[in-house]
């Protein structure tokens, strides 16, 4: 059974067919790359998978369960985490507060308890703070614990966003261009980190990427999206030399 | 006849809606002060008509003209003093600002004129000898009088505004700024001037609505166009604008007519044992449109 499977997903915006019968599969513990030129529809595909868009046709299955009709937060509850291309955080809160918010589903006390300030709620909050600080440690971000997120440099922002995605306790993580804005060495460091995440946390990853060395280093399997359709799929080495893929990126005819 | 009177008041609502859509297109907010442009215009006209206080008594057309100028002036002032300083603010803030402006204008009217003084807006003409559905004075006849002149004036105003917009350079500029302010400024259109112009026009259209509605209302109270303690033309105009699609000018006017008819029928046929029938009907229309067809009758999809 596949961790994540999309079949025939199509979505149309007005006159534009953004995705046409897109089908891909991600196996458990795999790191799968989704690549393609700008405007190919990669983020649109992510939005369909994570529930922000509703496709016109096709289905999305998480661990065999049909999730196509579920709103985004229900998919998070079932173990699907994601990051955003332009970084999704609560900009006016501190790093710690963001991590606390991201642990929303782990909070373990009813809302009323929170309002009344019961012991159960207070204890649960302590646990959340501990877990948040652990995540900060793992990602070497302890120094920014009380910094307002909006004032953070881009690199730390992205790392924190990854931390928040991890805080939702996902089984599969959808990363939208995690290396964007990073320099070449930082990008490869990121690659190491992703591999470590898979190994230590048993995560499955679906990654939108432009950075070819990173894709080659990290991905087990790659899908190429072009003009809303899957152009090719295969292992990174195969994809890199695939003539149509090269043409799609460079604009020359195969 | 509820249908005809509905169309008549509908013209007023249509004009209010017109002003609302104008501002929505240019500033992306609902102008809650739109109706007050009309209240102010009506009161200024009355001041000149009756020679109140320091105002000299002037003939009807001149008094009304001053009223219209006052309305346009208030629109300009609002743009200058309220809207422009808040250009960086969120849309919700701007909306609250227009609501505050409305309250300010209403209170100003109340302070200056008082609630107890009755100011009656004389109709522009007494009932004429022209009637529909039968000779004048008979049971089924609908005699034309000042209220029916509303219809003619309203349509003429709409037509004139529309023509002006579509044909003149200034009109094109207003459209350009409302579609894309950055692009407009790049081609050399002064967005501040156009903004002022747009609000002056909205003030003028609102003023016309106020001056036309005043004789229907008869005894004027401060804020009568916004509706204090009752449903005034502002709310009808807002619902009409939504019904018409919020971005379409002819849609706004048609929405106004429709809302007028609906309101008229609700007022006539819903028994008084069910209080607030008019309001409930309006609310139902608004909610229905927003849930089922947010783009209204003539709006375009990209605008919600």
């Amino acid at each position, binding site marked *: 059974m596949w961790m994540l499977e999309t079949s025939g997903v199509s979505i149309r915006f007005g006159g534009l067919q953004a995705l046409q019968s897109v089908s891909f599969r991600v196996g458990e513990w795999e790191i799968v790359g989704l690549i393609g030129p700008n405007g190919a529809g990669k983020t649109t595909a992510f939005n369909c998978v994570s529930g922000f868009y509703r496709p016109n046709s096709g289905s999305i299955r998480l661990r065999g369960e049909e999730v196509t009709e579920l709103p985004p937060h229900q998919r998070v509850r079932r173990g699907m985490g994601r990051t955003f291309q332009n970084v999704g955080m609560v900009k006016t809160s501190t790093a710690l507060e963001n991590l606390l918010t991201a642990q929303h589903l782990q909070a373990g006390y009813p809302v009323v308890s929170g309002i009344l300030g019961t012991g159960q709620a207070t204890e649960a909050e302590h646990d959340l703070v501990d877990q948040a600080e652990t995540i900060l440690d793992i990602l070497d971000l302890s120094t920014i614990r009380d910094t307002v997120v909006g004032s953070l440099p881009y690199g730390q922002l992205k790392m924190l966003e990854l931390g928040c995605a991890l805080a939702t306790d996902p089984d599969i993580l959808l990363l939208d261009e995690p290396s964007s804005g990073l320099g070449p060495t930082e990008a490869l460091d990121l690659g190491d980190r992703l591999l470590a995440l898979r190994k230590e946390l048993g995560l499955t990853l679906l990654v939108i990427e432009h950075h070819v060395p990173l894709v080659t280093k990290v991905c087990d399997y790659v899908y190429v999206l072009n003009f809303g359709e899957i152009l090719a799929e295969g292992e990174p080495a195969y994809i890199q030399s695939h003539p149509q893929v090269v043409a799609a990126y460079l604009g020359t005819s195969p | 006849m509820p249908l005809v009177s509905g169309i008549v008041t509908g013209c007023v609502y249509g004009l209010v809606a017109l002003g609302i859509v104008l501002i929505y297109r240019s500033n992306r907010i609902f102008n809650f002060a739109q109706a007050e442009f009309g209240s102010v215009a009506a009161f200024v006209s009355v001041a000149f008509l009756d020679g109140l206080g320091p105002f000299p008594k002037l003939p009807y057309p001149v008094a009304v003209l001053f009223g219209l100028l006052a309305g346009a002036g208030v629109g300009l002032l609002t743009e200058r003093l309220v809207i422009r300083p808040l250009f960086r603010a969120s849309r919700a803030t701007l909306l609250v600002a227009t609501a505050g402006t409305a309250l300010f204008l209403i209170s100003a009217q*109340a302070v200056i004129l008082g609630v107890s003084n009755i100011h009656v807006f004389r109709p522009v003409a007494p009932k004429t000898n022209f009637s529909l559905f039968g000779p004048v004075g008979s049971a089924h006849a609908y005699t034309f009088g000042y209220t029916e002149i509303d219809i003619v004036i309203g349509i003429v105003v709409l037509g004139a505004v529309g023509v002006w917009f579509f044909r003149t350079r200034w009109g094109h500029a207003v459209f350009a700024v409302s579609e894309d302010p950055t692009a407009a400024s790049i081609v050399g259109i002064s967005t501040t001037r156009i903004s002022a112009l747009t609000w002056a026009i909205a003030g003028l259209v609102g003023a016309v609505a106020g001056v036309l509605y005043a004789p229907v209302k008869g005894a004027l109270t401060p804020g009568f166009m916004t509706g204090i303690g009752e449903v005034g033309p502002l709310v009808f105009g807002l619902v009409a604008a939504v019904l018409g699609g919020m971005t379409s000018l002819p849609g706004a006017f048609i929405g106004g007519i429709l809302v007028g008819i609906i309101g008229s029928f609700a007022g006539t046929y819903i028994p008084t044992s069910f209080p607030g029938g008019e309001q409930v009907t309006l609310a139902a229309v608004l909610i229905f449109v927003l849930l089922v067809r947010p783009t209204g009758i003539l709006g375009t999809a990209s605008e919600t």
Partner: protein
Amino acid sequence: MTDHTATITGTGRLDLAGLGARFAAWVVLVGGILAIAGTGPNITGYAITAAIYVLVGLSLNIILGYVGQLSLGHQALVGTGALFAAYLSKAEGLPFVVDVVIGGLAGAALALVIGFVALRIRGLYLALVTLVIGITLQGSLFEVPALTGGGAGESADRPSVLLSNGRFYLVCVAVCVAVFYLDSRLERSKAGRALLAIKEDERVAFSFGIDVMGYKLLAFVLSGLIAGVAGGLFAFSSQQFNGNDFSFQLALTFVLMTVVGGAGSRVGVAVGAIIFALLHTVVSHAGPFVSFANLFPASTAANILQFGPDLIGAFLLLLTLAFNPGGLAQQLKPVSRWMAGGPFRIHELPVSAGARR
């Protein structure tokens, strides 16, 4: 969080002077609030109104400040609470506390219904819908003779123990304090964080697993609950329910005072509410000092007394929006933070600025 005054003195010792000053400030504040109860029926009457306005402000703050939605029909929630409280008191003879509580529940239920409808609608249109719903309720439900006891309005008699304004005022203050406390707890809990995330960026909230619609509804319900309680207290304060009291103007006043006070800040909203509630008092007592009758013709003087407060209120709003967009909360922040045990600092530091509002 570290207390900076302790760091400045260089040790972990208690800063006795700071502690003493804070204690004194609290004593003055609490003492002042309690002392008002003994000032006689007129002043306590105004104080009761102020306390009720504070409750409404806190209620509106949940929707406007925490979720970031504009509610222009809030007077309907308050009015519904008043209506139910008065009706149950007169027609069913239920005791005061029960009446007010049910008034609150009525407000919550209405808010739930409004929420279901309105929250499916995007952006500013939501404000429009709340406006229309508010007006509709005022024109329909509040005019039903069976509920309002006829044109003059249903009466709501206070229990004998609360007949004195001073005592009723203390009850209102107690409710305010309770709501203040519960609201601060809400803010620190997972619900408070969820609401903040929703206000900032809904898709981020979704990606954190937050049920956005559910929490927005929760905010509406909590807001309605508090507004309903305020309405119940209002009915008993004037000892009558009158539908005309709950007009669009009142809804606007509520929004204005929340914005002037500073949406998102309990203290700011409370101060804004008190200012607006007291505008009437101030204007009428300014009579001897300004002598309106000498400056303006007689009728205008009377009008100023009646409508001046609205005029001033609207003017305050426009000033706030232009020059002080964060509301009075910005000015009050150093004081409120100091009173709560933090350091006294006029300006925000870049670090830890966002923590514990």
